[in-house]
């Protein structure tokens, strides 16, 4: 049974592609305002989990979003085609039209994310990795979601842009009470921003607060060796 302030309840989730089982018998819960980081080695099913939560892949088991949950999604990557003369502003305008949003909402996310006029008027296939990721974040925020699903949102950003993206994430979570589900390989980021961590691996998945879960022994077990990129930041 889901707790009263639960915004997402997952029970016995299973995802398989053909004979390959990606996620098996996964159950967890996310409360309103939580920042849940999903970690695990490559191929553990982190991205597939987000897609299952969005209803983008077939699955068994139950995924229950609470009434009023409104999702925004920042994918790990989109293969933008240079053949498409679609500008960032076209994407935002199209989403606003589909969801019947006022144009003021577009202006609000543009200033919130800090998109320049030059980026707005560029074709999506001609943006740099960082500009593209910013555009995707703006796209996800349009429509005022109260749950954000981030799949490695800063994978193609330089350090400054990465810092800005996480500051934005922090602001959204603390000022607007947004629930965040974040896939990340950067454990220092997980330690800094998440209050819950879900570890996916070939073994049994586990969940808990980062301070309890992100121990050297646990990380070694999870990644199958010493985790070289683990950076513990003391606050």
């Amino acid at each position, binding site marked *: 049974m889901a707790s009263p302030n639960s915004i997402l309840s997952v029970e016995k989730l299973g995802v398989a592609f053909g004979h390959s089982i990606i996620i098996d018998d996964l159950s967890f819960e996310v409360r309103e305002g939580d920042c849940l980081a999903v970690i695990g080695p490559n191929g553990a099913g982190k991205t597939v989990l987000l897609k299952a939560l969005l209803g983008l892949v077939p699955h068994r088991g139950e995924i229950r979003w609470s009434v009023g949950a409104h999702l925004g999604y920042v*994918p790990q990557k989109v293969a933008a085609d240079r053949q*498409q003369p679609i500008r960032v502003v076209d*994407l935002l305008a199209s989403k606003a039209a*589909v*969801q019947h949003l006022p144009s003021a909402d577009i202006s609000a996310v543009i200033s919130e994310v800090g998109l320049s006029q030059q980026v707005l008027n560029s074709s999506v296939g001609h943006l740099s990795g960082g500009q593209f990721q910013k555009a995707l974040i703006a796209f996800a925020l349009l429509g005022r979601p109260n749950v954000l699903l981030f799949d490695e949102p800063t994978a193609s950003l330089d350090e400054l842009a990465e810092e800005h993206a996480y500051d934005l994430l922090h602001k959204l979570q603390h000022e607007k009470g947004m629930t965040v589900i974040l896939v990340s390989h950067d454990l220092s980021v997980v330690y800094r921003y998440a209050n819950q961590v879900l570890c996916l691996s070939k073994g049994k998945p586990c969940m808990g607060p980062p301070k309890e879960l992100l121990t050297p022994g646990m990380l070694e077990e999870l990644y199958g060796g010493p985790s070289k990129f683990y950076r513990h930041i003391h606050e």
Partner: protein
Amino acid sequence: MHEGNILLFFLALCFALAAGLIGCFALMKRMLLASDVISHLALPGLGVAFLLKINPLYGGAVTLFLGTFLVWQLQKKTGLATDASIGVVFAAALAIGAAVTPKGDLIDALFGGLGSVNWLGFLLGVAASAVVVIAVFLMKDRLTLSTFSTELAASSGIRVDPLDLIYLLVFSLTVLVGLRFMGALLASSLIILPAAAARQFADRLSRFFVISAAISMISIVAGVFFNTYLFHLSTIAPATVIFAALVFAASLIVRRSW
């Protein structure tokens, strides 16, 4: 000009407008192969209609729309197998069409020139073209998002599979209007070539639509002109497609010199 020819010319312009618009999304969705297959799906129906001595477009419509469902199902899967399957559908449709179409009508079925048009045929053609134009504008935002990323479109509340089916049906409707002029082999050419040429000049969607539709309509006018004074064929399709192909080649040269 004879009244029947005026109606045909006006109908061809309506087809060109619809083809120019629907072609923009066909190009962006990278469905060139599927486009060709869809137009060839009309051939078996045209052939059977010729045999039964009924309006060939009725037969073409039946196999066109039934075949569209088949292509949609194939498109839902991904990878090389789908390409191979679409190739098989293409070859099978062409072979069945060639086998059942009476010899004397085969060239018309393949390259257009399916006789004159009466007022009913004209009005149906104009109405079908109007449906295509209106549908493109109504679906523009959904198609833009699903063209960019099906996942982001789905996460924005768009049901991508039904949208794809509606798009393919509208595409088939455009082909159906064009069958009279372009035939089963060349109907999709005027959908793809103007959009491919327009893409060289357009840096935004609105310009893409306008330039593609304009090239498509100009190609029809040029096709009528060159067929009348140069080729003297029973169909404007070859002259129209040659002109559209030249515009595409010119667009590449102009683009490179920028």
